[in-house]
């Protein structure tokens, strides 16, 4: 799973709480993945991408 970008999206009612990551994944396009869900393979792969030194951009 190859990420090319990732950015947090916050909860509209609680702007301090990130609830989604909007990610671009090669072959899958734009994928919205829930933050911190154990068992979600996109989230797990994103953690590996971050561990490689990449950064999830902050929400607007």
């Amino acid at each position, binding site marked *: 799973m190859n990420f090319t970008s990732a950015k947090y*999206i916050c*909860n*509209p009612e609680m702007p301090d709480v990130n609830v989604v990551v909007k990610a671009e994944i090669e*072959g899958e396009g734009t994928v919205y993945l*829930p933050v911190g*869900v154990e*068992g*979600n393979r*996109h989230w797990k792969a994103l953690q590996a991408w971050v561990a490689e030194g990449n950064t999830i951009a902050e929400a607007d």
Partner: protein
Amino acid sequence: MSNARKLADNLPTDGQLGNRNLIINGAMEVAQRGTSQSNANPAIGSVDRMRFALSGGTGTMSQQTMSASDRSTTGFDKYLRLDLSAGNNNAGLYYNVEAADILHAQGKKLTLSFWAKGTNPGGGSFVVPHYWYDGSNQNDGTSGSLTITSSWVKYAITFDTATASSASLTSASSRYDVAILQPNADTSTNAWQLNITGLMLEVGSQASPFEYENISTTLAKCQRYYAKIEGPIHGYACWSYSNVASTHFSLPEKMRATPSVTFTGTNNTGNNSSVGDSTFSMYNHSTWIGTSGANGVQYGGTNASSTQSIRINCYPHNSFTSNGISAGLYFGQNCSINADSEL
């Protein structure tokens, strides 16, 4: 041989008598994402539950329909085709069994059976690896081998279930993988083609007859891992905050984990003239206001979604006439909201 003897020989000697097949969609009938895919990193992009890996090769995987004579031979209407114009090692087909579904196979034998035909990788055969995997640790069993011919033949491969020495079998990502691959040591780039159907994995040392089931049952099983909410949808979203309206969609089945979401369709960033079969649109007080090009429709994610329903936030292209007023939604017939909870 008497009929009673034939019946006795076909009865399973291990495991239960029903629901024996650990593989979902082994008849290759359900293809929610479409009938052909070239994306394979590896990924499920055509037939549900069937994961395609190119591993540096080139090719496609697709759902095919049997000819009448082949249907008579195999008993199946659909089959899966992996068509590699250039092979590479570790290219092929993966199937992920959710660990909870196969824990009872520990310490026992497993039998993988299927119909297949086609051509072999350059080295002359496929390898059939199988292993526990928890997202970090992998514990391999002893791989099988497969050599196919140009005619439909039913194969059965029996092996000992891998021993889980380091892999956790209870984590949310735990699974048992079975694959049919170009062997790791075979780095040839020869073209090959694998046609396969009637895929069945069961506890025991003999292959029992394939368990046919109606397509609605198979679809429901597949929707634990992938589901589409398809347009056309007319609905209403509740004004949420500032310039956002939100709604929830129920998922057709309780999914394995809170899913990721993709959207098929584009945001209607215009007005009436842009409302179409392939656009996500909103209206407010009888006026089409479109969806924002920057935000459009978005997934609500954690804290607002679950394994049973997902929150969708809708951002209008033009402002609501006033805050606190709900918005209408129209998602065209070519639009879909795709929920992915694959292993």
